[in-house]
């Protein structure tokens, strides 16, 4: 059985393995090795047997190939209505075949399945809304990714990403010390301006346990500072855990279910340890999906719910605006036209569409909806891990056209993107197509217009 040194079915569990993968520029040898990677048909058959739920089997069987789902997929629209981009075609030619052939496929098939699962679907679940039978290709592609991963057919970056989670319980190499120190640093940097500002670490029994996306401590620590300042202004009793602070899950994108379970359990463990009233997660879409929607199943929680109630950041924001914990200075509302990117992961999977509109009502004078919007909104174009995969850069850039045109049609030059992935995709969209837009998370916008209670101002 051929297994490569870098490309193989073993997940990455040690720093050594991680570093040798990282040293392979762009995954060059990794993808070369993939050409010779063996496929274990009986293993796939047994995985299908055990895990392909009856719902998905039914879906694969009852699809009438009516094509009603075609227009729902932004890849189909962005690729000149290429029939090979019809969701049902994409899934039938991959997972459908695997299932019908009981895993009896070869290496070439698996590479095609990988390319399809990661470059032709972002698991945005939009097609499921349009199929008369509710067949959701996004769900099935997520599942297919798991099978590909089990055989070692996974894009290089995501093999690395899932390894990061396994080793660091974070999508990037951030140790507990790094994390705690970043929190301290942010307090030091802002306490002059905000006397009394703290980022309490591991404080038990508070109202809110706040968790983040590893990119924040790594590259955008001011996001953490902004969150702290907004909690401070709102007078919240809150904390961050020293361990279990990372909400995201590249392991989920990779189809590494075991890695995803390990990751989400670290967060649940923090909830149990600190016993907060609830958890609030930063402005990230897939983190919400991983921890709140999928996580309980990975972790085998019978309730199907997280150990404590979990809020997406937008839910906290709307609550704080409603009960006046955050008060907006009306004169500082956004005056220019502004639009809002609904993140698939919490608009379709979490139903948070109304909340977004309510927030926009508080902060913007000229809010323009994209069309379509809410649960019908298109994926930003970079979801499901696609933003980060070098091999599919071209496909990703083509897909961005749909979001580009949606934004252009609103006439707004400012896009609110309360999701890290969407934020990246919109930025890249600007980089690729230069349509002259800006984009932002909610936190800096809120901070620029919130009224600051007098007692919180520094005394000069």
């Amino acid at each position, binding site marked *: 059985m051929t297994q490569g040194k870098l490309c193989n079915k073993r997940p990455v569990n040690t720093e050594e393995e991680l570093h040798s993968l990282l040293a392979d520029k762009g995954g060059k040898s990794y993808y070369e090795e993939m050409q010779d990677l063996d496929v274990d048909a009986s293993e796939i058959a047994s995985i299908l047997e055990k895990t392909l739920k009856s719902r998905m089997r039914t879906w694969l069987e009852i699809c009438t190939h009516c094509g009603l789902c075609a227009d729902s997929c932004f890849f189909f629209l962005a690729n000149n209505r290429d029939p090979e981009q019809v969701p049902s075609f994409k899934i039938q030619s991959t997972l459908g075949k695997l299932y019908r052939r009981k895993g009896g496929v070869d290496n070439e098939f698996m590479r095609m399945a990988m390319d399809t699962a990661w470059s032709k679907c972002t698991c945005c679940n939009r097609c499921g809304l349009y199929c008369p039978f509710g067949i959701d290709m996004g769900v099935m592609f997520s599942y297919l990714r798991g099978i590909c991963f089990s055989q070692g057919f996974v894009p290089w970056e995501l093999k690395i990403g899932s390894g990061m989670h396994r080793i660091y319980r974070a999508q990037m190499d951030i140790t507990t010390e790094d994390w705690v120190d970043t929190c301290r640093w942010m307090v030091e940097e802002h306490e002059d*301006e905000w006397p009394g500002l703290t980022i309490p670490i591991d404080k038990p029994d508070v109202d809110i346990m706040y968790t983040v996306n*590893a*990119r924040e401590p790594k590259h955008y*620590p001011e996001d953490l500072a902004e969150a702290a300042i907004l909690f401070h202004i709102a007078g919240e009793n809150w904390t961050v855990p020293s361990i279990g602070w990372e909400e995201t899950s590249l392991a989920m994108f990779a189809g590494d279910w075991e890695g995803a379970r390990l990751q989400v359990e670290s967060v649940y463990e923090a909830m149990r340890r600190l016993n907060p009233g609830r958890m609030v997660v930063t402005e990230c879409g897939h983190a919400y999906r991983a921890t709140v929607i999928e996580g309980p199943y990975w972790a085998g929680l019978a309730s199907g719910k997280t150990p404590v109630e979990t809020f997406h950041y937008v839910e906290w924001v709307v609550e704080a605006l409603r009960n006046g914990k955050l008060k907006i200075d009306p004169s*500082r509302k956004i005056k220019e036209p502004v639009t809002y990117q609904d993140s698939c992961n919490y608009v379709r999977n979490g139903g948070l569409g109304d909340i977004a509109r309510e927030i926009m009502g508080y902060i913007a004078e000229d809010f323009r909806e994209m069309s379509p919007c809410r649960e019908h909104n298109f994926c930003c174009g970079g979801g499901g891990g696609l933003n980060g995969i070098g091999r599919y850069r071209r496909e990703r850039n083509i897909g961005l056209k749909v979001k580009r045109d949606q934004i252009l049609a609103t006439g707004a030059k400012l896009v609110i993107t309360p999701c890290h992935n969407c934020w990246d995709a919109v930025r890249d969209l600007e980089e690729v197509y230069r349509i002259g837009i800006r984009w*932002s998370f909610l936190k800096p916008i809120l901070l*620029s217009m919130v009224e600051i209670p007098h007692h919180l101002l520094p005394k000069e």
Partner: protein
Amino acid sequence: MFGKVLFATTATPACDNAAHVAFNIAEKYHSELLIFHVLGLPSRGFSPFVRDARTGEEEYYDQDYIQWVEEELKNTYAEQLARYPNARIMTMAGTPHTEILRLARKEDVDFIVMGAHSRQERTGALGYRQAGSNMQRVARSARCPVLIVNRPCTTCLWYFSNIIFGTDFSRASYSAFLFASKLAREIGSRLYIFHALDLSAMHAGKIFSQEEIEDQIKAAKEKIHRIYLSQMQDYDNVEMEIWEGVPYMEILKYCREKNGDLIVMAHHTREIDPEEALLGSTVEQVVLRASCPVASVNRPDKIQEQRKTR
């Protein structure tokens, strides 16, 4: 005050003037010099891509790439390094201001030298209402003085003979004063304490009478005596002046008149109105237009510390 100096460079000719000054300081004060370059924005989600800050090309962030950039840095500063080898070259991928501040904190540096850096990045990755260029953000948040060198500086063998200290009487300005006065004493240069009555606020409709303006000038004079001049003790190479107008214009004009070769001022955190972020803060305006370097000082940490040990 200059024990450990961090020179933050874009590794492009834009920073040559800053490099010149950084090496000069290091030589004169036998400083430990850190030459730090932020490779580029980690622009692709979580992935190991970096958009090279110098070329704008996308690169894989790996050992090869890092070594290549570090070699290039060594070449860029080969001449200076030959004269002053007590320097460490360091790189990191990330958002420049974040990584500069992170390193300054980690290494507990006493002084940062940087160029004005390009303002390009503002329209891009920083997005909306994320005020300021890298330079502004470093100047605003650093715990040590930050020297920004935008133009070739003629006197720059680190013998500043005319130091212009601009104040708005804030707490941060006091830190700037500590630095300016200490430096003036050390070098024996003339210190000019300057305040501009901010008339730009009056566009809002309020018109001050000449009398009111004069009262304010008088009050400011008293303040300068009370807060600053009283601290100068025997050092009498000091002058003060109060003008009225738009602060950054006035300080620039004053600096010209006095042949200032260094401007020292504070950079306030709240100063930047996000709506006007594109215009930048007073410090940025001064930096971009002044013909001499500008030191931004907001906190007393790195100045007072030294005091105690003396």
